[in-house]
């Protein structure tokens, strides 16, 4: 009986530990913060401007979008201009201290990361996938090379519900078990530069001219549209039962019904748009187009407000939304925090470096565990919000 109770206690503890090591509400686990890539997060501790610069790190290479979990921030850093390959960093979120660094050898400078269940997963351009413990040890849990057969893997990975989704240019999409890296399924869809997107019980793959919804548990095609794979894809975004994607074959950006794959409306966004729903149910899309930031009503499609770039500067980053506040950066390195409902400027700063997104490393803003993380070239800057009630 005692053995049974101990076993039961062990099971319960195991469940609790898995739950606590899984995705917490404040984690940033993928490109544009989450597996839906909607760029939105609600920090439980609040996010009140003005922000304070907590630390700045020069990582001497192109810094990727940050993944944030367990009090650590993980970034890929391309060895640009030195030699092919990249480095994978874990930094202490509060201090910016480098906790560990892994060399990621391979072709080109590209690698990208996702997080779930206490592990961070890194994919390089050769399709080599590594799993590390997302803690101070950074132990290798497993590693495997996907049979990309001369092609490249250039899509940021996504992890959810125990599976890691990786897209390979020549051999399609793989679902790997997070615990051991074993292949659960493979769908032979060629994909370039389009991170798998998750939402509404589906996994979305969007290459230009060809896009799919797959069952994430077995890879079964739930719907497909397009029919001609013409070009490199772009990251799609899932929000409220709709998929936002770019299809150059049909002439631009479109909104799809996530349930059926039917195109329901044209859209406009240059980079991944961010989405936010306020307490009243109002839904906002934030998109940087033509160097300006636009807030668009998801319901009507009309522009609610816009922030126009100056002639000498350009808004360039994909926006993110933290507790209803929009964060966006300009080419010259200015960082803006705007009221999501009105567009009012709440705070701004000038980071070191510039926001130049064409370095070969997929970069982007990030937020998690009470912090805002801002890559700008080789520089990574962390900001903390104000503590309500505390005078500055």
């Amino acid at each position, binding site marked *: 009986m005692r053995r049974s109770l101990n076993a039961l206690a062990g099971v319960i503890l195991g469940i609790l530990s898995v739950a606590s090591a899984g995705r917490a509400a404040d984690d940033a686990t993928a490109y544009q913060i989450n597996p839906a890539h909607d760029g939105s997060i609600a920090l439980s501790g609040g996010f009140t401007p003005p922000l304070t610069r907590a630390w700045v790190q020069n990582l001497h290479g192109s810094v990727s979008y940050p993944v944030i979990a367990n009090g650590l921030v993980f970034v890929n850093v391309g060895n640009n201009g030195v030699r092919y390959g990249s480095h994978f960093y874990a930094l202490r979120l509060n201090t910016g201290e480098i906790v560990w660094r892994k060399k990621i050898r391979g072709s080109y400078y590209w690698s990208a990361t996702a997080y779930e269940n206490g592990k961070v997963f890194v994919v390089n351009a050769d399709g080599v996938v590594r799993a590390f413990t997302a803690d101070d040890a950074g132990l290798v849990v497993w590693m495997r090379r996907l049979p990309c057969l001369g092609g490249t893997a250039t899509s940021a990975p996504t992890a959810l519900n125990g599976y890691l989704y990786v897209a390979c240019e020549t051999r399609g999409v793989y679902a790997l078990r997070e615990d051991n890296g074993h292949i659960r399924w493979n769908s032979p869809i060629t994909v370039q530069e389009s991170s798998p997107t998750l939402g509404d019980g589906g996994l979305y793959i969007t290459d230009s001219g060809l896009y799919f919804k797959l069952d994430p548990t077995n890879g079964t095609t739930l719907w497909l549209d397009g029919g001609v794979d013409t070009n490199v894809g772009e990251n799609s975004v899932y929000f409220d039962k709709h998929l936002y994607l770019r299809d150059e074959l*049909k*002439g*631009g*950006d479109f909104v799809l019904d996530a349930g059926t794959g039917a195109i329901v*409306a*044209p*859209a*406009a*966004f*240059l980079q991944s748009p961010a989405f936010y729903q306020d307490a009243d149910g109002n839904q906002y899309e934030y*998109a940087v*187009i*033509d*160097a*300006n930031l*636009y807030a*668009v009503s998801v319901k*009507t*499609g*009309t*522009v609610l407000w*816009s922030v*126009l*770039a100056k002639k000498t500067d*350009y808004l360039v980053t994909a926006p993110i939304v933290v507790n209803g506040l929009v964060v966006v950066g300009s080419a010259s390195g200015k960082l803006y925090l705007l009221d999501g409902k009105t567009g009012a400027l709440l705070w701004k700063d000038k980071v070191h470096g510039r926001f130049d997104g064409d370095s070969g490393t997929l970069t982007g803003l990030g937020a998690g565990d009470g912090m805002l993380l801002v890559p700008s070239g080789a520089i990574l800057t962390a900001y903390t919000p104000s503590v309500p009630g505390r005078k500055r």
Partner: protein
Amino acid sequence: MTKLAIATALAIAFACSIAHADTAQSYQINIAHTGSIAFKRGFAPPLKRRWVRNLGGSISYPVIANGIAYVTVGNDYGYGSQIYALNIKTGETVWQRLIDSIYRWSNAAYDNGQIFVVDFDGVVEALSAESGALNWWSYPHDGQNTFSSPPTATNGQLFVGGSGTGGTLYAMAESDGTPEWTQTVENGDNSAPTIGDGGVYVTYPGQYYKFDPATGALIWRYNGGIEGGGGRTSPYFGRQLYARDGLSNIILDADTGRATGTFSTTPIPAFFKNASGKSDMLELTNNQLYCVDVHSGNVIWSFVGDHKLSTAPIVINGIVVEGSGSGELYLLDGTTGSVLWSTNVGAPIPAPDEQNIFQQPLTGLGAGDNTLVVPAGSQISAYVPQRNRHR
């Protein structure tokens, strides 16, 4: 039909006719593209500037209806464009939508409470004129991928031209975008469909067409022995089609398609009836504006202004409006050509470029709701009479 139904139908027809009286619904104001309009409340100089705005990119011809001026605006830095709905009295943005496409061209038309926008990729959006909400949209399913002709909407139908592999003229239902018919044309670019005399006309180099709007049946085709390249928008006036194609300007009998003469102009000409009831045509050639008697071809008057006249002329209540590349805006007596009033709008008023539409929407002067609207690059101004006088 009951008396009530007849009365209701008549009331609706009357309401529609009233609603259209001061409306500028297409390129060059109306679906015949004559560039002429009559304000119910009159139009007499001097004018005063009611508002001016800078929209940050090249501004199209305005479409004006129900107190709102609609313009498309090419994005300044990147590709794509936007549509703005501006309060005609204040210039304030009523609503604004983003239009995603390659290049910066898009243009609009209005009818029956909807704004129709076509972009370079051929995506057609039907928007609520009041709120900007998307009512329906479509994109070409036949492989055409280059759209550069402003749309024309009337009587429940929307006409759009496209090209890519040859050219296509599309007719679709204003209500929901349902395709009604398509016709193959040579070659689909740069010609806003023209409506008049029971036909819809499009004109491309050496190839001019008249189709039955209801069925799409070809009524006549003028074959000049050549084809290729982008066309131009051709106005319909007085049972004649003034066919423009970028190479030549030929007057055609709208009933038969037979050539009856030629005319000389660079931008699209305007047409109006002068004070004595005769029909006149306004042609801009070599930066000089000519008023020509439509029937005799005689020049009645000419105007050189600052030697930089640039715009396609329009006519409001018999008063000719012309802009220049130095920003001068002239109001001329339609009978004599004398200057009634002039101002400088503060920015060059560009000529309409109907050919190189990659970089900007097609632009032009506009008038509606008792207001003259003047796009000048990225600036747009609205002018109204200082005092309303009936002419």
